[in-house]
């Protein structure tokens, strides 16, 4: 089994989950509680990767980050390198592609917390931020954890978008899925089978964990 690819995949999954926790939590909290008329638009954008083929998303990301685009030029002048075919590029793609897998469970977790519990806290003099940390988060954490597990597992098996943005550079962008693809392409079925089995067991364990967490969602 390609241990370098395993290490890289683990790193990518951890970073993607971490970034999505930082971006996704406030976004999901806003979507769960907001009465804004534009909420549907944000929800649609978040859900887009669910219906869009990874190759299409990958194509647009390549286009946005190329030297011809303003963003690509700005990024290059800031960092001295381009996003495509780097680990950072793959991470950005992975974060965008996994947005619904993290944010949707987060929204469900926040929505499951009865609003009247928050109102009770406010009437007891608790500020909104204290209420968030002392009431919302403790009650929503199983759902949030389940979103994190889903994101982690999904990143583990990503293929299309990683290939589009990162290509197949060992130690930089070559994840386990890409390794399987290459093994099959070079008729190395034994290695492909071994890696595939590891991914299968891993996916099953992750789903079992998500199921266990969902059973712990608050029943208020």
């Amino acid at each position, binding site marked *: 089994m390609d241990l370098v690819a395993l290490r890289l995949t683990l790193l990518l999954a951890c970073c993607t989950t971490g970034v999505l926790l930082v971006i996704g939590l406030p976004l999901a909290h806003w979507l769960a509680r907001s009465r804004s008329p534009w909420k549907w638009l944000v929800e649609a954008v978040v859900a887009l990767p669910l219906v869009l083929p990874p190759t299409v998303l990958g194509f647009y990301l390549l286009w946005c980050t190329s030297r011809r685009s303003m963003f690509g030029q700005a990024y290059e002048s800031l960092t001295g390198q381009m996003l495509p075919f780097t680990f950072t590029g793959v991470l950005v793609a992975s974060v965008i592609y996994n947005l619904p897998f993290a944010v949707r469970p987060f929204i469900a977790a926040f929505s499951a917390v009865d609003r*009247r*519990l928050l109102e009770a806290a*406010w*009437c007891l*003099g*608790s*500020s909104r931020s204290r209420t968030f940390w002392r009431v919302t988060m403790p009650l929503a954490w199983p759902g949030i954890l389940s979103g994190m597990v889903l994101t982690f597992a999904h990143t583990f098996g990503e293929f299309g978008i990683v290939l589009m943005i990162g290509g197949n550079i060992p130690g930089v962008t070559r994840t386990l899925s890409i390794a399987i693809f290459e093994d099959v392409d070079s008729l190395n079925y034994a290695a492909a089978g071994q890696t595939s089995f590891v991914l299968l067991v891993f996916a099953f364990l992750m789903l079992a964990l998500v199921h266990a967490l969902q059973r712990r969602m608050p029943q*208020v």
Partner: protein
Amino acid sequence: MSPWMDAVFTKSYPGVSIRGELNWADRPRRVTALFGPSGCGKTTVLRCLAGLERLDAGVIRAFGQTWSDPGQRIHVAPQHRGVGFLFQDYMLFPHLNVRDNVAFGAPSQPDQRAQVDQLLQRFQLAGLDRRFPRELSGGQQQRVALARVLAAQPRLLCLDEPLSALDGPTRTHLRIELRKWLREFQLPALIVSHDAIDIQALADDLIVMSDGQVRQSGPVEEVLHQPVDITVARIVGFENFVPVKVEQRDSEGLSVEHVGWRFRGLDQLRSSNTSEGIACIRAEDLRLRKINADEAASLATILECIPEGAMLRVRLKLPSGQILQALVPRSTEFRSGETASIDLVVNAAVIVCKDSR
């Protein structure tokens, strides 16, 4: 002296507009009940006072502060109003034990722990402080919710249907408990309820609401027994509405007549020129006596007898065709088709305007 609470406001939802009117100039330690049918806007009034809803128009002033005034873009957050809100289902934090629930809103002072201990003791929760809300009975949950609200040292208590989640003996027991706590803590309180028994047991003053409007307010007994119109009479439990002609008016009330049946009633007609009105009569204030058909004018034919707890609900028909309902002791034996004479408890009828709605 400015009133401690002065609020006139509106809050609209699709298809319904709620107008709150509250003005308390004196006696701020009284318990006031907001009473009315489900969906009439009672809870919305409480939520507006607590700052949980923003007003569409109007103003709420309390304790010398403006709490809400959309015209001036003022909306004091619930955290800064000092309103203790007791929710219908108590809304205890399910992930916190009894002690942590009570301590949640207690001000962070060096003696916070001692204060919480004192409240736990007072509400007989000392042995339960490590339990979680799901492990408590309805009565224990109510005590925790009250202790939690009081730990935050509120200036005003708002209780939203505090007994509606309960039934039977538990409800009776908790009604007595709640009455005790309310008397003991001497805080101004507003209670929302649609149960007249709860209101009589808990409140000093009563505000009757219907269709988002305040219809009548005053001391509980006064509003319950002297409704100003048919709508209020219906809400506070009058069941019989008999069209009458005014025969005589004196300082003690009115003498009225309905097709030969004469009785006296309280004058709630708004004009002394009015000669017609509606007599509102509670079912329990009608007295029935078995009689031969030719004995008296105020007689009625019994249509139906329905047992109702210790009482018997009797549906009657007057010679005029008017249907009445009477609640009589179950021991009285009446049968359908029999004739009975009707009598009224003294001054139990309230005569209101015919066109009052």
